[in-house]
């Protein structure tokens, strides 16, 4: 269709023709994507097969799959993946529970509902660096309010190897539960009211209504929220990097950063980036498959 439109046709003169839209917006976008996404992606794939340091003077040496073999047999890397998995489970699990729970509350008739919803969305509008620094202070055993409110005395959240990951995950939950809430709220408001009326006439219990009407109808949107949050949590860097230097909070993105920009092991870091990419794509595919199944029900 695009090819049949003439640029000087009357339609084109009235507004932007499809051809002009293609030339002005689509082609530059595709070029931008190729230059800044596709090209580095392919280029870095090439580097992942080389022993190479971008900051070094030596020429790259082709080592085949050696970088991948080294990484996958390195117990430290598996430890980073374990930390990441724990973090994703705690963080995304918490965000779904809190976000969906708050959405259920906001789905009722409340005074100043709009204002409350806007205020609840504030955390996700903040910079992750600011949130990390802010929560670092909140957790401080000397002057933080968390220990004061919960009567935890001098408990050092970020110094405790076991509690540090929870502390970082709770911060992420605070920041991103509003995102889950927003999508859940959109899903909840789309549930036809007559279904609840019918359930009410049939004297269905609250749990029955929730499990048979609310949850199935909201779950596609909730799953989309989970997909986004899982992908983001898997790639988490900023909050964890700012808040703690505990090895128990060293998620895979931090390890990747150290490989790439502190140790300048460019080849190895490219290989690790690909391993992470494959994992994220695999996890996302599982979710998407499940999402399709949910939609078909």
């Amino acid at each position, binding site marked *: 269709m695009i090819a049949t439109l003439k640029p000087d046709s009357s339609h084109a003169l009235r507004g932007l023709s499809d051809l002009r839209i293609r030339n002005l917006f689509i082609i530059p976008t595709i070029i931008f994507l190729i230059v800044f996404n596709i090209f580095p992606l392919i280029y870095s794939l090439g580097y992942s097969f080389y022993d190479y340091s971008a*900051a070094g003077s030596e020429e790259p040496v082709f080592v085949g799959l050696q970088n991948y073999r080294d990484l996958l047999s390195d117990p430290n890397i598996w430890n980073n993946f374990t930390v990441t998995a724990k973090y994703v489970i705690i963080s995304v699990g918490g965000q779904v529970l809190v976000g969906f729970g708050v959405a259920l509350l906001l789905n009722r008739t409340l005074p100043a509902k709009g204002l409350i919803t806007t205020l609840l969305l504030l955390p996700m509008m903040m910079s992750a660096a600011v949130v990390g620094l802010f929560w670092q202070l909140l957790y401080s055993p000397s002057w933080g309010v968390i220990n004061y409110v919960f009567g935890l005395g*001098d408990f050092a959240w970020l110094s405790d190897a076991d509690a540090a990951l929870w502390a970082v995950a709770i911060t992420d939950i605070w920041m991103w539960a509003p995102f889950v809430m927003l999508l859940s709220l959109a899903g909840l408001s789309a549930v036809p009211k007559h279904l609840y009326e019918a359930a009410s006439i049939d004297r269905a219990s609250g749990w029955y209504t929730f499990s048979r009407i609310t949850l199935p109808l909201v779950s596609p949107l909730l799953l989309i929220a989970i997909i986004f949050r899982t992908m983001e949590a898997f790639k988490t860097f900023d909050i964890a990097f700012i808040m703690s230097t505990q090895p128990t909070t060293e998620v895979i993105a931090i390890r990747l950063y150290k490989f790439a920009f502190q140790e300048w092991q460019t080849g190895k870091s490219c290989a690790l980036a690909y391993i992470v990419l494959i994992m994220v794509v695999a996890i996302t595919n599982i979710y998407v498959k499940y999402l399709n199944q949910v939609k078909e029900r």
Partner: protein
Amino acid sequence: MSKRTFASLMAGVAMTIAGASAAAAEELTIFWAEWDPANYLQELVNIYSKETGVKVTVETTPWSDFQTKTFREFAAKGSTYDMVVGDSQWVGAGATDGHYVDLSDFFMKNKLADKFLPATVAGYAEYPAGSKKYWSIPLEGDANGWAYRKDWFEDPKEKEAFKKKYGYDLDVPKDYKQLRDIAEFFYRPDQKRYGVALYTDNSYDAMAMGVEQTIFSYGGDLGDYATYKVDGITNSKESIEGLKAYKELYKFTPPGWAKAFFLENNQAITENLAAMSMNYFAFFPALANPATNPNAKGTGFFANPAGPTGKRFAALGGQGISIVSYSKKKEAAMKFLEWFIKDETQKKWAELGGYTCSTAVLKSAEFQNATPYNKAFYDSMLMVKDFWATPEYAELLTSMNQRVYPFVISGKGTAEEALNGMTKDWEATFKKYKRYK
């Protein structure tokens, strides 16, 4: 367009380009971390600008980003910076990877090895060790030292209580045993007062510096820098005892002291948190200034105490200035260095607040009495020792951080396990880089 108009236009363009090139030749950019000494350096180079007409700008970036940004520029072979005031550990990478201009001839010609403190020449300029190949001019000398609450130490009640408990006078610690005792004495969580503030941040070299100087003072070492031998050295009995001593001191830090570097350790003094605080001397001006430290009058400074065998070491901080080999103004940069090494420039540098490495200036009574910490600084500079400066130093740091941090901060495993693990990692790293013949 007429021929004449075109010719005039081209002449204008040519003149603009020529003018721009001339202007570019009159400007130099020095890259450093964002901290007070960089501001002092800007003041110093302004004098050079006045004298020569060459505009020199000191561009800075936060410490957390300094290494990454510098090496990113090196990786791109960029000419944004003509000179860089690089960390001592970078000399190896700067030299072997071709990022720094070889300054050996300049060094020899101006007899700089005699002019600057030997430790600073070895730490900031020479690579490999003992090779007489020089890559930097010592610019900002620095070492790890201690700030302490002089007012707490001099309180007669505290003195009496201390003497009663430990059997000797409360004073600046002479050895690590006394340092530990004093830390224990002032550790009073019920009063929100603690014994000591240590470096614990393991995202780069902070904690490693605190640990290494304790290990050195206990007679241990981080390996043989000439042969790359580490087994039996980094995990020797002395090194293990040094690490245990650091862990022991950590018991007396304020709660949550798990990611502390210079900022937190200065806060430990300003916020009445700790009796003693480890820090680099470059951060002490803020503690001596009543505008930034309400306890400035009651704050004193001392150099690292001795270990059990009398050995005294301080972790080397500070940086040397190098010419970036990708700079397009290497000649102008060299002229600047010629000015920088002059005696009067070094004296002015010290007056502005910079830690000169000039032996003559450092030795002078004028310098040593200028601030409450200059004498301790001078003493420290005579006993500095550095981390590895080999190009793979960052991998060594990562491994040290991973092995030592869980033991010191979380009490996981033993000092032996931590150092044995680190030794194994370091050997593997050196093997990977073919350091063993």
